[in-house]
């Protein structure tokens, strides 16, 4: 199988680490060669963060470049637009419609771009937009947006539903399993 590329992007502190941990574990269990790459450090302080997940028969590079991502899973609206140049021709952007103002917007030096999803669609990008924050809150915690989005991503894969659930059970603390399973379900079926 050719290498498949998934990017997880968002704002530092939104839980991309758990999402990539879950994906990585699942894909290793499925028997793929897997590489997951992220940059720690500065990015934890509310900055823009990106994680690369690559899997296939044999994966070499740990990074995903322009035009290579099969999926971009974005935890925040304009972060999807920031990284969309890395999407492949037939790729899909799964995006949480939540808006988080970056510092230039907070201090009034820039405007929050409102219509990026429309512009992406106009340029032929497959955009799958969901309100992951509301769904996560419905599941029991605003912090579970990451798992809602993983549920949405799962729809595009042939991997059985139960295997994703197993991966969740093995990646989160026992007291949060039920809530995260609910979040995953809401993302999958919304």
């Amino acid at each position: 199988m050719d290498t498949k590329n998934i990017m997880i992007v968002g704002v530092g502190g939104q839980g991309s680490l758990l999402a990539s941990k879950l994906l990585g574990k699942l894909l290793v269990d499925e028997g793929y060669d897997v590489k997951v790459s992220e940059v720690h450090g500065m990015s934890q302080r509310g900055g823009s963060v990106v994680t690369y997940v690559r899997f296939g028969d044999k994966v070499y590079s740990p990074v995903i470049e322009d035009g290579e991502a099969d999926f971009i899973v974005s935890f925040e609206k304009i972060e999807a637009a920031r990284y969309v140049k890395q999407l492949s021709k037939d790729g899909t952007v799964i995006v949480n419609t939540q808006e988080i103002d970056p510092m230039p917007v907070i201090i009034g030096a820039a405007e929050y771009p409102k219509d990026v999803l429309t512009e992406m669609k106009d340029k032929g990008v497959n955009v799958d937009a969901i309100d992951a924050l509301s769904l996560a809150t419905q599941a029991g915690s605003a912090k579970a947006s990451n798992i809602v989005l993983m549920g949405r991503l799962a729809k595009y894969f042939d991997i059985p539903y139960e295997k994703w659930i197993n991966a969740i059970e093995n990646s989160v603390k026992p007291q949060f399993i039920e809530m995260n399973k609910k979040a995953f379900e809401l993302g999958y079926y919304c």
Partner: protein
Amino acid sequence: MKKLLIGNAAIARGLYEGGCSLISSYPGTPSTEITEEFAKFSDTYCEWAPNEKVAMETAFGAALQGKRSACCMKHVGLNVAADPLFTMSYTGVNAGLVICVADDPGMHSSQNEQDSRHYAIASKIPMLEPSDSEECLEFAKLAFEISENFDTPVFIKTCTRVAHSQSIVEIGERTEVTKEYAKNGAKYIMMPGNAIKRHPFVEERTKALTEYADTSGINRIEKADNAEFGIITSSTSYQYVKEVFGDSVSVLKLGMVNPLPINLIKDFAKLVNKIYVVEELDPIIENHCKSIGVDVIGREVFSILGEFSQKSIAKAFNIQDKYSVDLDTQIPVRPPMMCAGCPHRGMYYVLARNKVTVLGDIGCYTLGAQPPLCALDSTLCMGASVSSIHGFNKAGGTETEQKTVCVIGDSTFMHSGVTGLINIAYNMSNSTVIILDNSITGMTGHQQNPTTGYSIKGDPAGKINLEDLCHSVGINSVRVVDPYNLDECEKVLKEELNKNEPSVIISRRPCVLLKYVKPKTPLKVNTDKCKGCKKCMKFGCPAISFKDGHAKVDTTLCIGCEVCKQLCAFDAFESEVK
């Protein structure tokens, strides 16, 4: 058992399996997780040292005593540890000694992009360079063998993309190794009469290691039939080369980058018509090839700056760009910033309001340089704030002394700020040093340090009292302020700046991300009272934005520090009643 591990965790596993009994390190991105992961093993010793020099000397001592040991640091940390490094090359080791160093091409989290391979060459110490997590584990184990067989410390060098990328590794068993300690002054007392006899040993050792590089298999040729050209590469660059070319070109993959092989490179040159060298940062392999008479292409087509990727390699070979969407909308940048409720922000606000010159240092608080606070004037390296304010004030005189401070974190102060403070006390400048004490090593992800009272494993440990330490080196005026109290900070700042003696202000409040710091009720804005003057926006708190003519608090971010309340002339910030 197969596991998906980041390179750093794989190095920790490899060191553990290789019988490592002690690690002493100072945290630094992207090296930190090696030590953190190693601390999780119960049958070994692991610690945070105050700085990299102390860490390296601690590891040296343990190896001398007879236990396999290691120390880990980022590239700039190796500058701090360079003094013991060069002479450890002469003494060699008893039990194996491994130095892990992580470079940061692209400067994701660093102040420069120096290439650590120069240190291996200069100190004549072998350096292994893994290209993925599997090699991280293998090379860490192998490093101890090389260390003992050749009587030398051994480097394992990574970069951000190897240190922080996860790939699959096979977990193995641990081997225990213990050597007897025997007094051997000729080998371990490096005074001139002894050192002069050790230098020839070092030169012979390099020859032996070069033969090892040629023959051991750590450097390997991957031959492709009918290949147009060949590529010499190592580290993550190898992965990019394979991503672009697969098995269609011949590759000399280097796992050991010091000393570099000679015969193997010459043999490789016979196999191909043309050779490219693909290496990030400085042209070290390239210059070596040229020095042994092998013609190669390197910096003519590849950049000396930043990280590579499959894209940059493809571009260098004129392989066409892939399809890519371009949006017309400009997306505003999203830089990292100090968190909502960060205790550093209050002190920075006071400094900015008083238009004080601020010599800065390395840590989360370097983020105070950004708008809207723009509170810093310089940042150089760990500890430099305290040493350079002394020079700044000596050069500028009384007028400068009265409007200049330096800021340094608690961990950075313990690392190398205290020596600068000793200089201020000894050579008498009226400098004002502000220690931003958030009671943790923040930027690298919350590591304990000598002022926190806890060890790397979270057990109670010795606790250095900052006030006593400052007093003891000769600073009479040591004041402690709460950075959430702006008036107090301003009053103490003005008093200390005007004193005719050196002083230390300890701005003390724990990092809001620490588990024991419980957030208070978030504030809200009373829009009847808010006049839209935007004074609170000058504070740069990410929880406060300006919407529809009024300030607005993001209650998911606000931790109720209430500093914004002190800024507002109209009492518009109110505690939410639950």
